């Protein structure tokens, strides 16, 4: 299998081919053919990724595949190249693996669509996978950025997939615009890099001599700009509000793009640039603060949401905040670990919610559900596993990754740990609130819905089961050293890419056990509390503080007030005053002046020969007078 790395170009190429076939042939191909092509290309990429992963385990230096010069101007040379190393191969597995399951799930979930739209859906989905693979395989920031923009575009297309509903289009626009704000910062960072360092290939950038060219300010500015880019893509404060609205897209899209892969692009990018970030303590602190604030804010909002997908969306924002907290405290491996486990259980939860929505004929409001556990046993059990995993109960995957993050937060600052632990408790609470309201108690929907309730087809339930298994076992790759010596395989695997954190203060094993036990015990108490509160949920109106949370802290309204409306006003002012009065005034004024003066001058052309002659004589006299007086 030596030459498998020579074939890495196939990994992104196959989804691209799938995109072209499905996109161009969507009117001719039948739904089953589209589904087979769409899922098949991803499966092929997944198989290749596994071989690549096997190969990469033994490599100590990254494999670079150079294809052609993407940009070659003067001294600047940007090759179109792929870089395969431990970090990218891990992401390849997540993207193609989870992506494949979600493709399979989609064949059943989207089956109601017309063949044409079905083809369009799979074309977008394949294009997304292609872009995401480009993003993680790119050997320099420019290729990464191409993928970065590509996933943003696909996200836009898929959020607005049901484009006949105007509010969905608005959600798509919102996502796109907010992402663009971050992308601009990313682009400036790239330009800054080129200006100061002259190169942007990862292998060249992260060397001592290149880094010596950059001053401390340069590094801080570049890392901050990159982080702003990451806040856009990964939905952090202040650019997070697009992600909950992005739930307008089909549910499998939410699972793949807005939970498992695309939103983790920011984490990937920062983990990839970990050498730079480690050199700028200021940026690290900002990343940690933003991550922590986002995690807490989103978790509080999630407590009071009633839309099943909105809860999961805020939960995603909150978990992404956890990952940024890990990055900011220098625990890059923990962040990547959480990306991986989060991809499993959040994709599982989203697909589970999709299964519920499917069974409820499109209903998304959990207040109208209840008692679904008997009718949807597979969905219920897998959803339960997802909830346990995300809450962080051992030995499911979420426990290990969240524990790694909490530990690094504790080492950095016990206050961070306190807030992060509190957020983790909130996570457990709102996830089990969601579970109990949806699956326990009495059914609260209409009779028609109740009659129609059914377990999802196997194309949907099998991916759920696989993801549930992964959610259970996914954490074992990163068992803390304290429990099993040498259990933290992930750190060892990623060590060539991500240098091990070299913090001074070690923590004793007994203290580590205590922290784990504390968080687990508190989470269990939280779940009991949620059970007592929501096992027989009755519809109530939120009041007081709950109302503030239900309305998402009024952040959207705040943005509307301080950004959108002033911009609208400015636009209105420019339109009504600058455009109408000034610009049109000048243009029309010139026209009017010419018109008026020619109207007046026309009167001289009377046809009276006498007046012509008189004028002629008078002007001759005038010429003489001018000559006479001005000659000197």
């Amino acid at each position: 299998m030596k030459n498998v790395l020579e074939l890495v170009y196939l990994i992104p190429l196959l989804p691209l081919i799938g995109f072209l076939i499905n996109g161009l042939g969507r009117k001719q191909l039948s739904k089953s053919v589209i589904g087979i092509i769409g899922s098949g290309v991803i499966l092929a990429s997944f198989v290749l990724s596994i071989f690549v992963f096997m190969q990469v385990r033994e490599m100590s230096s990254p494999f670079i595949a150079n294809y052609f010069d993407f940009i070659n101007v003067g001294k600047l040379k940007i090759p179109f190249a792929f870089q395969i190393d431990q970090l990218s191969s891990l992401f390849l597995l997540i993207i193609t693996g989870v992506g494949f399951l979600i493709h399979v799930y989609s064949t059943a979930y989207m089956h109601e669509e017309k063949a044409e739209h079905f083809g369009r859906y799979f074309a977008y989905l394949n294009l997304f996978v292609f872009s995401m693979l480009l993003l993680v395989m790119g050997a320099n920031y420019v290729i990464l950025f191409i993928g970065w923009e590509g996933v943003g575009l696909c996200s836009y297309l898929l959020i607005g997939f049901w484009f006949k509903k105007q509010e969905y289009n608005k959600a798509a626009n919102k996502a796109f615009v907010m992402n663009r704000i971050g992308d601009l910062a990313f682009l400036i960072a790239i330009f800054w890099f080129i200006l100061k360092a002259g190169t942007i290939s990862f292998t060249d950038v992260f060397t001592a001599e290149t880094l010596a060219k950059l001053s401390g300010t340069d590094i801080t500015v570049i890392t901050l700009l990159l982080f702003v880019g990451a806040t856009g893509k990964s939905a952090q404060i202040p650019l997070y509000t697009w992600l909950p609205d992005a739930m307008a897209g089909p549910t499998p899209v939410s699972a793949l793009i807005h939970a498992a892969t695309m939103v983790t692009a920011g984490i990937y990018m920062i983990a990839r640039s970990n050498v730079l970030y480690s050199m700028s303590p200021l940026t690290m602190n900002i990343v940690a603060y933003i991550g922590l604030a986002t995690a807490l804010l989103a978790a509080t909002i999630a407590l009071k949401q009633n839309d099943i997908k909105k809860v999961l969306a805020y939960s995603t924002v909150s978990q992404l905040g956890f990952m940024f907290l890990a990055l900011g405290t220098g625990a890059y491996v923990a962040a990547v670990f959480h990306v991986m486990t989060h991809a499993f259980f959040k994709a599982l939860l989203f697909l589970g919610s999709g299964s519920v929505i499917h069974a409820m004929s499109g209903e998304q409001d959990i207040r109208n559900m209840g008692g679904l556990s008997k009718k949807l046993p597979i969905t219920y059990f897998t959803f339960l596993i997802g909830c346990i995993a995300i809450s962080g109960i051992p030995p499911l995957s979420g426990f290990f990754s969240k524990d790694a993050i909490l530990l690094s937060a504790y080492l950095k600052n016990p206050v961070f740990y306190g807030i992060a632990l509190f957020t983790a408790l909130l996570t457990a609470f709102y996830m089990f609130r969601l579970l109990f309201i949806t699956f326990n108690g009495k059914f609260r929907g209409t009779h028609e819905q109740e009659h129609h309730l059914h377990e999802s087809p196997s194309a949907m339930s099998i991916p759920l089961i696989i993801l549930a298994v992964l959610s259970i076992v996914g954490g074992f790759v990163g068992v803390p050293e304290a429990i099993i010596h040498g259990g933290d395989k992930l750190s060892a695997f990623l060590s060539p890419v991500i240098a091990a954190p070299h913090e001074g203060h070690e923590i004793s094993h007994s203290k580590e056990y205590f922290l784990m036990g504390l968080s687990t015990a508190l989470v269990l108490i939280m779940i009991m509390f949620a059970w007592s509160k929501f096992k027989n949920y009755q519809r109530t109106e939120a009041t007081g503080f709950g109302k503030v949370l239900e309305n998402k802290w009024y952040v959207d309204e705040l943005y509307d007030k301080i950004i959108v409306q002033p911009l609208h006003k400015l636009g209105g002012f420019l339109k009504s005053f600058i455009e109408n009065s000034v610009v049109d005034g000048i243009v029309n004024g010139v026209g009017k002046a010419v018109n008026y003066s020619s109207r007046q001058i026309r009167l001289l052309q009377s046809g009276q020969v006498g007046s012509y002659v008189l004028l002629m004589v008078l002007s001759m006299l005038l010429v003489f007078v001018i000559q006479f007086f001005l000659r000197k």
Partner: protein
Amino acid sequence: MPITYYILLSIALFVIGIVGVLTRRNAIIIFMCIELMLNAVNLLLVAFSKMHYARAVAADATAGSDGQLFVFFIMVVAAAEVSVGLAIIVMMYRNIHSVDINFLNRLKH
């Protein structure tokens, strides 16, 4: 004879021409007045030429008769102008049976 007399005569002729052009409506009279103005200028040119002839030749043997040459030139141009102008007037008379220039304002329509 002092040059002043020539100048005064020229001015008189020229002013008569201008006033004639401005006040009369008969195209032929206007035409004659224009000729009058041209000849007033001719007279002045010849008078000045005669006056400065000796001094100009003293400075440059080939110079001195520019003024008189101009006069011939003006006469030629005037002759050409007369032929064209009279032709126009004839055509005008054929069309409107009048040589009153106030009828000419219809040209603009």
